[in-house]
């Protein structure tokens, strides 16, 4: 069953293959400063020890609520944030220690699509100069060749090449997101972090953008880290899904397994919180309602971070940090009781 949905399945020893991105024990703390002398009095542990791999050609979905650290993780992987601890290896090369100049050389290979298409495009630049900037910066092409590439990119993302000299405000939200995508693929990257690329869009436009991302993935052999809080869309687009809670991963599994047989109580609760657009199903669907809100990442609870809201928490959960373990091949979870049947 996994084989159908994991592109690595062609390779019987999928785990032997070198991942395109390998994240190991990644941590990103933000300091909390106070007083006149800006003394550090603590830190926000936005990402606190996260490990996962992204393989070539796959889409890894990263889901979680606001404040879970999913966007910070995405930014840290691209070195848009300085990493506190841990390593990110891109195509076998550790990039955490690289200088800005060295990372710059890798930029053409790894790109980002941002959440808000209204804020991520410079309002004073024409579409042609926005999309053409990476080409210019990385001396990929110039003059006539660059013009042709810009037109090619616009066509590729479904925009009219004759609109190249317009400004971002002349486009709708969905079209602006297409411009952001064109900019991201301009240098033929291998890996793109999509940070909530459809969250700011209307429902009828969301599916257009998701289809575009999937088409581009197939034609350009892209790998995606697809960060989202929309579980149903992630289920549609991702091959494997990682669930984040308060800076740590709680579960990672092939998409069908994660949705059909979630092992972590948080994954179950998250899954059952999403309303189903079908009144017949909604009338009978069982619900797990979590108590309270996500705790502050500057002062996470001891033991399992989910223990304060967990409907099945035991005494042990507030003392021991659960181990991140592979309970079935390719299915990772951090819960003491993940393999206890019947709860």
């Amino acid at each position, binding site marked *: 069953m996994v084989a159908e949905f994991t592109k690595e399945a062609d390779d019987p020893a999928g785990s032997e293959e070198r991942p395109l991105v390998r994240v190991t024990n990644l941590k990103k703390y933000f300091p909390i400063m106070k007083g006149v002398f800006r003394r550090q009095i603590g830190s926000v542990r936005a990402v606190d020890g996260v490990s996962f791999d992204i393989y070539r050609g796959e889409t890894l979905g990263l889901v979680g609520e606001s404040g879970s650290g999913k966007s910070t993780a995405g930014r840290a992987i691209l070195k848009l944030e300085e990493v506190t601890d841990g390593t990110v290896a891109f195509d076998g090369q550790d990039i955490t220690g690289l200088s800005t100049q060295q990372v710059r050389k890798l930029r053409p290979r790894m790109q980002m699509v941002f959440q808000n298409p209204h804020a991520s495009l410079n309002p004073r630049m024409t579409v042609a100069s926005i999309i053409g900037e990476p080409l210019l910066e990385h001396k990929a092409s110039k003059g006539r060749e660059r013009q042709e590439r810009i037109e090619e990119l616009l066509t590729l993302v479904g925009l009219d090449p004759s609109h190249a000299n317009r400004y971002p405000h002349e486009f709708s939200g969905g079209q602006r997101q297409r411009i952001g995508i064109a900019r991201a693929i301009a240098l033929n990257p291998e890996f793109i972090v999509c940070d909530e690329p459809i969250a700011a869009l209307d*429902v*009828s436009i969301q*599916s257009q953008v998701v289809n575009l991302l999937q088409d581009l993935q197939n034609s350009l052999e892209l790998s995606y880290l697809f960060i989202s809080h929309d579980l149903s869309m992630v*289920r*549609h687009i991702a091959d494997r899904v990682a669930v984040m809670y308060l800076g740590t991963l709680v579960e990672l599994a092939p998409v069908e397994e994660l949705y059909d047989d979630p092992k972590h109580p948080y994954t179950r609760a998250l899954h059952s919180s999403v*309303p189903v657009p079908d009144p017949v199903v909604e009338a009978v669907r069982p619900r797990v309602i979590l108590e309270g809100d996500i705790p502050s990442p500057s002062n996470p609870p001891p033991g399992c971070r989910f223990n304060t809201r967990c409907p099945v928490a035991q005494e042990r959960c507030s003392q021991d940090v659960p181990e991140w373990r592979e309970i079935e091949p390719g299915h990772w979870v951090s819960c003491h009781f993940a393999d206890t049947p019947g709860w």
Partner: protein
Amino acid sequence: MTDRPILDVSGLTTKFHTQDGIVHAVNDVSFSLNPGEFLGVVGESGSGKSVTMMSLLRLIPMPPGEITDGTAMFDDQDLLSINGDELRKVRGGKIGFIFQDPMTSLNPVFTVGRQIEESLRLHKDMNSKEARARSTELLTMVGIPDADQRVTNFPHELSGGMRQRVMIAIALACSPKVIIADEPTTALDVTVQAQIIEIVRDLREKLDTAVIWITHDLGVIAGLADRVLVMYGGQIVEEAPVRDLYGRPEHPYTQGLLQSLPRLDQRGQELHSIEGQPPTMHVAPTGCSFAPRCPFVHERCIKEVPKLTEAAPEHRVACWWDTHKGEARNGG
């Protein structure tokens, strides 16, 4: 369902006069709300769903807004023509409002208790002691623990989900006949949204308040609403009991919306998408506003605005084409 409607809106038309010309935000909208009914209103941004409901209580800024036509009968009064004093009795008293963003719709310098008590003292003539007791009771009702402590908190001391509960408590304070909730869970995380929906579900059983719930999320109202209005381009394009709407949508826009949601049995396939962009509303509609994006578009759709007509019992649609039969609707 045979009860006399508690709210009856007819021919509502709202325009905004902007620098770029007139925006036709709401065009000839008519609907009614029965006592105790839960009415879902679905539409994308710019479809006019919020402006319609804000217009009812004349909450849109005027100018630039202008309600050019229509009536809204509530309690034998026309909300669109009564004077300011009468309107104030309705707002917050007989009709409660819950806004989308609990961060900005509470006053940061007053305690939540005082904000709940404000409407009680204004509308119900309660003294401070009675109002405090009632506000504590309300906070308990919306699932806030230690309510007698919480009434002394300021909004910034509460989380987003707690603030939205306070908003619900304020809306419920004077036991209104109608509550209008404008995207009340959109700013919240899914697990907190699930908590709020559970509270609303629970309150529905206990109180007989009618609710109008505005949303862009077809999932949220599927399990809550009795009846759903679908809005597009400032008009109601479809109106039906919830199961009929999801089970047998009549309007091509509703069909497209439901098909564009990712489904389990279609993983890996292209999602259905509605091509094109929503209308800009700078010109008054001369035909069906969905016509430029509609896969079934006919000549008539561009020339004539379709009226809501009955397609099945209690199921009304504004479309010239019957997609199920593949022929023009009667009269078309």
